[in-house]
């Protein structure tokens, strides 16, 4: 079959299939089973469509592919400009990969207001894909803000505990931060006359933007604050543990798996892409924050009594690696940052699913309530161990590759970055393995835990893909890096005039 005719519309398809599915869900009668099946089909369909991106990508071609550029609003000059490169394509794929798993993992656990749940989930998917594919700054902001409402509602309605507090905190924190980005975007538009990322980038490089020299530090900060809150970079991270702990499982998976990457993607695409000089000037303190995040996140994770909080703080730590990699300005560092994003999406997504599975059985995340679970739940324990090891960074699993590349990049930039960053790897082994030991090993401390059922077929179905992905990514990282690398090199050319500094693969 000749599928090349799809190329011009494939991004639109991938982005809006979930939204169309959500619209159709509105009119489907309220039979929970039908709704779940329909949502699963829609999300699988979106995943299938996104595979087309990988299948027909021109591997070594830098720049954007599958571009669409149509005028949306004439004045101000807003375009429906979409496109992906090696960086964003994988993030799109990560989103479409995780969403069907979210549907599966919510199959049993969501039994009230099922219809609304899946509508929100699918709308969220569209917004997330849109963030990664938009090449018009306005369109980007549009999708960026659109992620807020469905995510806040998912936490606030379907969460538990202090869910309202968490939802409102999440909403306000990220909304206030993105206002700064909006101001910067409008400033750029007022001077360049276009929202188009490529055009603005060219105008800045050519020095055609009036008043840019004085405004650039502020613009850089405007973008940076919005992204740093999303990542979340220390000290903007306080919304994250609350949001994660109270969110429903699917919400946590998408939050950790994809939403946080919106921040790092933004840093990579916009802060580096538009303001290379400011990025260089600010790199020292940003790297310092990232290192604090790595160590602080890990230390705090270690003392958490709550399974989900451990994983949430581990995200703070892992995302610190991503930021460190990005602001090392080395090829290895950027490649590694990208790879950590993907690996973290897969393995932390899986960890949150596993935490959700135990919550359904015990209605608690407290580690003290567990202990010795390996006896009644051997399959569960096996999956958990596998994913934990992936997250720790065991060679041949996905976590190792990214962290190794980031650290080698960091060493090139500044040996101290590498040394302090490397301790993070040790810390993460400490807290994750210690948590694993407390949850699974030893005697069953609570007698009622003896009767816990092991994984159901549905749960295994949701977990297997993540396990396979973690293994394949660890064994054959080049499948990913081959496509990431050209995009990273393009991003670097503006940053590192002296190409000899780049010690590649």
């Amino acid at each position, binding site marked *: 079959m000749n599928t090349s005719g799809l190329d011009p519309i494939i991004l639109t398809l991938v982005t809006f299939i979930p939204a169309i599915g959500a619209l159709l869900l509105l009119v489907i009668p309220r039979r929970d089973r039908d709704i779940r099946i329909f949502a699963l089909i829609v999300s699988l369909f979106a995943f299938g469509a996104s595979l087309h991106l990988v299948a027909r990508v021109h591997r070594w071609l830098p720049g954007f592919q599958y571009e669409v550029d149509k005028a*949306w*609003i*004439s*004045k*101000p000059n807003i375009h429906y400009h979409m496109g992906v490169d090696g960086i964003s394509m994988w993030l799109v794929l990560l989103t479409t990969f995780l969403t069907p798993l979210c549907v599966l993992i919510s199959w049993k656990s969501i039994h009230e*207001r099922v219809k*609304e749940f899946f509508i929100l989930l699918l709308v969220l998917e569209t917004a997330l894909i849109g963030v990664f594919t938009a090449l018009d700054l306005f369109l980007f*902001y*549009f*999708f960026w*803000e*659109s992620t*807020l*409402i469905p995510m806040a*509602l998912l936490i*606030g*309605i379907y969460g538990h505990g202090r*869910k*309202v507090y968490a*939802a*409102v905190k999440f*909403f*306000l924190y990220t*909304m*206030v931060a993105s*206002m700064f980005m*909006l*101001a910067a975007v*409008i*400033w750029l*538009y*007022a001077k360049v006359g276009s929202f188009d990322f490529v055009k603005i980038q060219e105008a800045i490089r050519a020095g055609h933007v009036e008043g840019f020299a004085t405004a650039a530090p502020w613009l850089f900060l405007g973008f940076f604050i919005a992204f740093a809150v999303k990542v979340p970079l220390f000290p903007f991270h306080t919304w994250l543990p609350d949001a994660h702990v109270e969110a429903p499982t699917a919400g946590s998976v998408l939050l950790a798996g994809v939403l946080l990457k919106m921040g790092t993607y933004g840093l990579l695409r916009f802060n580096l892409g538009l303001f290379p000089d400011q990025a260089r000037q600010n790199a020292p303190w940003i790297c310092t924050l990232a290192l604090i995040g790595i160590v602080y996140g890990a230390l705090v994770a270690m003392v958490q009594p709550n399974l989900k909080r451990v994983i949430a703080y581990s995200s703070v730590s892992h995302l610190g690696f991503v930021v460190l990699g990005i602001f090392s300005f080395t090829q290895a560092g950027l490649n590694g940052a990208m790879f950590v994003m993907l690996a973290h999406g897969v393995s932390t997504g899986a960890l949150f699913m596993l935490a959700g599975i135990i919550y359904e059985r015990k209605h608690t995340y407290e580690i003290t309530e567990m202990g010795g679970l390996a006896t009644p739940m051997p399959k569960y324990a096996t999956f958990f161990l596998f994913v934990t090891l992936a997250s720790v960074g065991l060679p041949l699993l996905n976590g190792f590759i990214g962290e190794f590349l980031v650290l080698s990049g960091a060493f090139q930039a500044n040996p101290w970055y590498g040394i302090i960053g490397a301790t993070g790897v040790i810390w993460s082994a400490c807290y994750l393995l210690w948590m694993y030991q407390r949850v699974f090993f030893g005697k069953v401390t609570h007698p009622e835990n003896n009767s816990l059922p092991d994984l159901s077929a549905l749960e295994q179905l949701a977990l297997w893909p993540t396990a396979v992905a973690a293994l394949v990514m660890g064994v054959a990282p080049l499948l990913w890096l081959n496509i990431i690398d050209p995009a990273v090199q393009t991003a670097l050319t503006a940053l590192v005039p002296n190409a000899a500094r780049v010690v590649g693969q």
Partner: protein
Amino acid sequence: MNPQTMQSIPAAADYIRILPEIVLSIFGMVIMFLDPLLDEEKSQKLLGGIGLAGTIAALLSTWIMAQSPGFAFWNMVRVDEFSVFFHALVILIALVLILTSYEYMAVQRIRAGEYYGLILLGLVGMCLMSSAVELVLIFIALEISSISTYILAGFRRRSAISSESSLKYFLLGSFATAFFLYGVALMFGATGSTNIEEISAYLNSGNVTVLAYVAVAFMFIGLGFKVAAAPFHVWTPDVYEGAPAPVVGYMSTAPKAAAFAVLLRVLFEINAPGRFWLVWISAALSMTLGNVAALVQDNVKRLLAYSSIAHAGYVLVAFAARPDVGAPAVMFYMASYAAMNVGAFAVVSHLANAGERYVTVEDYAGLGRRSPFLAGALAIFLISLIGIPITGGFFAKFYVFSAALQSNLVVLTIIGVSNSALGAYYYLRLIVAMYMKDGSDDVPVLPIPASLALALVITITATVYLGVVPGRVLDSVQRSAQQLVRPAESTQPAQLNQVAPPHSL
């Protein structure tokens, strides 16, 4: 005005140029005439139907009027795209208002005849406000519109608070119109004319006296009261709290839109001297006071009253900007504000129930479960009021702030942007209550009648339409704004420098 034209008899075209006003007057009088003849029980539906027919006929005649642009009645009325836009806007608001009032009137046991009559007659004034280019005629139109609104505010005769609302509105409102009239008189003293174009020509030829500054300030006070801008806003919460809920939706949009139309003429078409700081201070005050006060409100009507003050502030930001970018932003803002606010009040008036008993935030708890349609509709309006993408409210804010930035109003933009972040909180409170709190079942939700459903569908469609494909409306407002500012354009650059401070904030 030369004597020759005064003597000539109005041509047929003159009447076509006020056709909507004529049609509305006829329908209004028919209702007034029929009311005492009909049995009270039966009259409700019939008179409402006539009112509805009146608005539809007025819409059609607006279309007819739009076909013959030009001056009428000795240069007192001008039909152009600007006046057609505001005609259509206020008539549409009234149409939705009549649809929402249908059921409300029955529930509150209010006699309907005069109600519908007053709506149509008040509409005559508002329509005329947008097409009059003669200050005295504008004043008369303003009075027609205000007096009918004073009475409408007191329509819940059995409730003391409604009478209080009406009286307060009347006393303060008369005071404000007196200010406007005083301003008109002073303007005549300063320029020797009450015709907008003649005033504009006179002032732009450099003959700006102190008197003209005072005149502008007085007219601004009068109109500032009508649009509920700080510091002339104190009446708003009390009046909105007491007046019937559908009327509040109407008061906060239609007379406001008409008053903004006059402000556009007075400030931009005249190119009023000394307007900059007047508007700047009022905008900053309105946004801040409105949003801060709204934070602590428990009564939804009061909350939306303060929110309407804040929104008046956002609109005024555009008045501080350059006319060519400010005027279209104002018009677009009013259109999308009308859609979302009328819709929100439609939901509020339905939920209020007999005697407007249920109007606190607590009464909205659990609405998402009890009535998904109403809660969903209100959520969309609130999201739009916050200014989140996919809704008209987002583009409205966007255009206002980009107009401000294009005019280098950085400080005012920062105040505005921080305010809209602040504002998000209290709108969110309502969403949180609806979806994330459990309500008591003793707050009943009446079945949704077809008329209300239609009103909501219209307002939701308008809100989303303006948020996704704002292009057509935007083109229209940009064309009309060009007509508005063109007369002054020849001398504008010099004039602008004089008006705006050198490093305008």
